[in-house]
């Protein structure tokens, strides 16, 4: 069975593995120079790196590959595994050899899962290692140019650590099950892509932030920490202030919310129009002397505070392990469904 598993998987596996291997070589060659350059100091390191087009491209290519890999695995390794046999009716040839269907599926699933875990694991490990110096600099608050996003933030989280492996395995399970249920290769591929993307979006938007207890900082709003202010209406007739944002001393965090509380600790949906003065005059107008200072004083007097909720950069691995475990349990469940589904009629 091992021979047959590899014989049938290699056609899809080799091109994907080769593409990943090419990327790994590029990472291995350029990685050591990043470590050296980082020793010069974080600020000058990232500034210098921003000018290196090849490494910037590599940085983004790595992220793109890590996100694309589960889709490729699900659609090209998972979905055709059983669907193509059913379509060509070769399931009737292979299931009438002296190997039970269950055993056949076990070898095919585990074989593909082993290749998937190896390819995704190597890719993610290499990316995490290569981008390590960059991410340490970003976590230290020195982010600049194309290197602004901390690895715990949604855009990068799925391309680092163990999560890419878990997504790839989950996508494989989705693909095999879709093929078994739909019995058509192309339709199963399409459904697999939709399911994988939907799962990623669902996890990012609703699940991930719940996997660990976020931290909360409540701080007075001051001239120093105010970084954003959103106004409704136009410059002449300000209706109200929609929201204001402050910066905390925290660096490299994943910010979940940045809210204004009133003196009773209730969340303010909108703020009074006078708060606009805290943002300074509209562009091209002269500042009214003392208006800004008065505004911040009034905010303090009336008891307004800003509440920031976030996952600190130190929670990265906790979130990684928990999300990976969750996805793997889901993948195992889907794999079990495959074994249940393969019994019964094979028309």
């Amino acid at each position, binding site marked *: 069975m091992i021979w047959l598993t590899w014989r049938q998987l290699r*056609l899809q596996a080799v091109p994907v593995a080769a593409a990943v291997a090419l990327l790994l070589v590029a990472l291995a060659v350029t990685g050591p120079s990043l470590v050296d350059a980082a020793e010069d100091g974080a600020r000058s390191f990232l500034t210098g790196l921003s000018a290196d087009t090849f490494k910037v491209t590599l940085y983004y290519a790595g992220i793109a590959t890590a996100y694309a890999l589960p889709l490729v695995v699900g659609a090209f390794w998972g979905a055709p595994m059983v669907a193509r046999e059913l379509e060509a009716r*070769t399931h009737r*040839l292979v*299931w*009438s050899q*002296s190997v039970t269907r269950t055993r056949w599926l076990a070898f095919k699933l585990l074989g593909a899962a082993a290749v998937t875990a190896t390819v995704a694991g190597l890719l993610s490990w290499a990316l995490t290692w290569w981008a390590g110096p960059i991410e340490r600099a970003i976590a230290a608050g020195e982010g600049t140019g194309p290197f602004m996003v901390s690895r715990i933030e949604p855009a990068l989280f799925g391309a680092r650590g163990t999560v890419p492996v878990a997504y790839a395995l989950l996508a494989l399970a989705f693909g095999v099950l879709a093929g078994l249920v739909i019995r058509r290769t192309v339709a199963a591929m399409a459904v697999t892509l939709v399911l994988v993307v939907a799962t990623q979006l669902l996890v990012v938007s609703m699940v991930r932030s719940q996997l660990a207890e976020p931290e909360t900082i409540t701080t007075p709003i001051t001239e120093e920490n105010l970084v954003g202010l959103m106004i409704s209406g136009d410059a002449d007739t300000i209706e109200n202030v929609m929201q204001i944002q402050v910066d905390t001393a925290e660096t490299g965090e994943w910010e979940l919310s940045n809210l204004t509380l009133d003196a009773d600790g209730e969340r303010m949906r909108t703020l009074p129009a006078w708060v606009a003065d805290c943002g300074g005059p509209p562009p091209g107008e002269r500042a009214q002397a003392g208006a800004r200072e008065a505004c911040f004083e009034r905010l303090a007097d009336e008891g307004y505070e800003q509440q920031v909720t976030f996952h600190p950069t130190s929670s990265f691995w906790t979130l990684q392990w928990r999300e990976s475990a969750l996805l793997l349990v889901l993948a195992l469940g889907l794999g079990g469904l495959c074994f249940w589904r393969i019994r019964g009629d*094979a028309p």
Partner: protein
Amino acid sequence: MTTALRTHELGKRYGRSRHWALKDCTLDLPTGRVVGLVGPNGAGKSTLLGLAAGMLVPTAGRIDVLGEAPSSGSEHLARVGFVSQDAPTYRGMSVADHLRLGAHLNPRWDDALVRERIDRLGIDPSRRTGSLSGGQRAQIALTMAIGKRPELLILDEPVAALDPLARREFMQDLMEAVAEQDLTVVLSSHLVSDLERACDYLVVLVDSQVRVAGDLEELLASHRRMTGARRPSDVGPAGHHVVTASHTDRQSTFVVRTGGPLVDPSWDATPLGLEDLVLAYLRGDASYERPRPTVEVVR
């Protein structure tokens, strides 16, 4: 043990369909025979063979293959060879790869036998099966089924896609393999001529039910076409089971299964060939089991 395939009131419906693809099928096929399963398209032949090969799960009744439930484990799978309709093969894989697959997946694989067969058939092992003719593909599928050294070989319409010459060669080749290996074979066809030379046991399946089953010699010996003067419809010669009846103005012809010696001199009895025998059972169904459509004129 002498039973290759035993079924008891076996029935099969697909999915939520209300139509029975096979119904109340009770059969007992002995080992050491070449059993021909005949019936028109859609009669349930593939369903019966699919159930026997363990590809389908019965909806009703029970089925035993070589004394066990079909495909009840890898050991049982090794005892049964199955070639599905249209003899599916991996079109992108070479003949040699198919043989390697057989060798890897079957503990009793007979490599020498298989190589000898491929050699004799003159098929280049490096060719992909997708580039072979239908007849050659069927031969590859048969070779794989024989190569696992089964006790029972189940072939579903093995020659349906072949031209007449390839059909004859395939059947001849099958007969040689059977003679060499002491196999029990169950094969289906909707053409009697495919089975004529090969089979020594016959099962006729019509409208998802078994119409007749038995040793071919005995069936031929016990059936007669009887012709005599015009009789009332469906009242055949006494003591005999009427299979079909047809009448002209002056003559009545019955195909009967004889219950004893034919003594009535008013009948002219002639033996039947296999084709006529099968056709009698197929027609028998058509003439008095299926309700005739009524035609009304609406003005």
